[in-house]
């Protein structure tokens, strides 16, 4: 597979007063991959993601997302990406279909396009019967899946998911990752933060953030192998959870 970067970041830093939330991070994300962004609460995952989405100005460093500068061209970036925030952020007083149509319209899709895409996504969720339900009346698991569908309604090149499975039951999490994989197969690059280590195994590559810095970046298998060597443990017993414990132990920041 040819590797062209869709996100390319060098020495990206974000400071809030004297606190450095994100400290000199550099990495590339390639087109088509599922890129996991792992770390404890407060490690700086969300802050880093917000800079890439054009919600937050970097204090220092450079970066491009879908070919545009994160400092100066954030409004251009926004046309090509999707974003699902940590907090549920669809309109609860609009119906499922109305939310999808609203965002379809916002991204400049025409009415027939929107209709076709809404039907396609609702079918994928097996949710067509509920399209006229108010979003506020849905259970959390459904809301999260719906938010993901809304974030990808305009078939973006890249979608950012900020802890999409927080507070969701294991079965729904499994379904959610099926949806993520389907979307990735359609050619959308996935950038996902999580602190569920089992989910890391679904990613093509992962980074581990500790105290605002990137401590590790590799495929899950390579990371397990490397830490099996370091810790003198058999590779077959090594889990991502142990890798995380080992790295996060050094963390200075509390929750």
């Amino acid at each position: 597979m040819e590797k062209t970067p869709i996100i390319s970041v060098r020495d990206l830093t974000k400071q809030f007063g004297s606190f450095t939330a994100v400290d000199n991070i550099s990495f590339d994300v390639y087109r088509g991959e599922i890129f996991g962004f792992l770390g404890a609460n407060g490690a700086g995952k969300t802050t880093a993601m917000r800079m890439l989405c054009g919600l937050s100005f970097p204090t220092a460093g450079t970066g491009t997302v879908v070919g545009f500068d994160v400092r100066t061209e954030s409004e251009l970036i926004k046309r090509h990406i999707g974003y699902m925030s940590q907090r549920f952020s669809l309109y609860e007083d609009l119906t499922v279909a109305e939310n999808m149509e609203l965002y379809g319209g916002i991204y400049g899709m025409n009415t027939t396009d929107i209709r076709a895409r809404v039907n396609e996504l609702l079918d994928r969720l097996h949710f067509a019967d509920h399209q006229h339900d108010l979003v506020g009346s849905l259970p959390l698991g459904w809301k999260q899946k719906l938010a993901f569908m809304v974030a990808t309604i305009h078939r973006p090149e890249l979608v950012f998911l900020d802890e999409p499975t927080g507070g969701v039951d294991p079965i729904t999490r499994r379904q959610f990752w099926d949806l993520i994989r389907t979307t990735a197969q359609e050619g959308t690059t996935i950038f996902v933060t999580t602190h569920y280590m089992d989910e890391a195994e679904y990613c093509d590559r992962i980074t581990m953030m500790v105290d605002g810095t990137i401590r590790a970046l590799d495929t899950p298998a390579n990371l397990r192998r490397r830490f099996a060597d370091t810790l003198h443990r058999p590779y077959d017993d090594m889990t991502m959870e142990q890798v995380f414990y080992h790295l996060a132990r050094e963390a200075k920041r509390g929750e």
Partner: protein
Amino acid sequence: MKSVLPILMRKEITQFRRNKVLPRLVVMMPIMLVLIMPLVTQMDIKNISVVVLDEDRSLLSTRIENHLANSDYFRMPESAYDYNQAVELMDQGRVDLIVSIPAHFERDMRNGHGKPISLTANAVNATKGGQGIQYATQTIISAVTEIAQESGLTGAAGLTASAVSQRSDLITVQNRYNPTSNYRHFMLPALMIMVLLLVCTFLPLLNIMTEKEHGTIEQINVTPVSRWEFILAKLIPYWLLALVMIGFAMLLAWAVYGLVPAGNPLQIFLGAFLFSLCMSGFSVTIANISNTMQQAIFVLFFFVIQFMLLSGLFTPICSMPAWAQVLTYAFPPRYVINIFRSVYLKGTLLSELWFDYTMLTLLSAAFYTLATFTYKKQN
């Protein structure tokens, strides 16, 4: 890319319609304002509790007492033997005004000398005390005049009679533009701005803060929607709604009180629109700088209270201290209240009110500049 404004506006209207409280409030507000508020903001003082100490017991003193008793302004629930007892009643808060008519008042008045009637008012509520004295004086004078005309009194009483006629001259001059001196006609047009304050100040603020607190505004901030498209889509429906509500309030005022603008109603709508523009810009600014709903509402209330008290709605601007008068120029309600009252009562022309319209336009521009600087999609 085609404009997303209609799409966003449809979203706002759907959300508004689906709200359980807001559409009802929008209908209730003008009805409340037109039917109830003019009654309770009445500044005429009524039900002044008066006690008459009559040591004269003449035809004249009885007539004075009858006039007071028959007046709408006074009631006489208490009686007293002497001044000390009357003052005691006043101490207890049961009497607002003591009218004491000295012995031989009628006889002395015919001779043109003697002790005058003394009025003692409870001035804890300064307005009530002052008005009480004024009404009592008028009532007494009219009683005296009546007796004077009936019995051909001369001297001091004759003078009093001419004083009365001078007084009524004065009153005629004051009551131009509002011939019946009806307080409602003065208050109603000004109270209509409350509709605008609700719809174009509070509703946009609550709307934006709700989106902030729910995080939905962040979702919009990662889309290509520009900040002004997003805000305008919220404000335009409110502006239209405000004009419809003003129209509704004007219809009600006509149907219930027969009050119609003496001037061109379009001038009312122009003033209402500029004021809506102004106040919604102000409210967007506050929403931008606030982090929570609580903070935003508190800040808005803080300003709205100053706006109202310094607007000339309840107390005339010209009787405020000089520094306060200067302050009122910075606050939008002053202009719209002046426009509404002038157009309604005097039929003042657009060209004569140019200052008020211009100031509203300038203040709108100022607030929108502030709103633009404080709105950040990226921080």
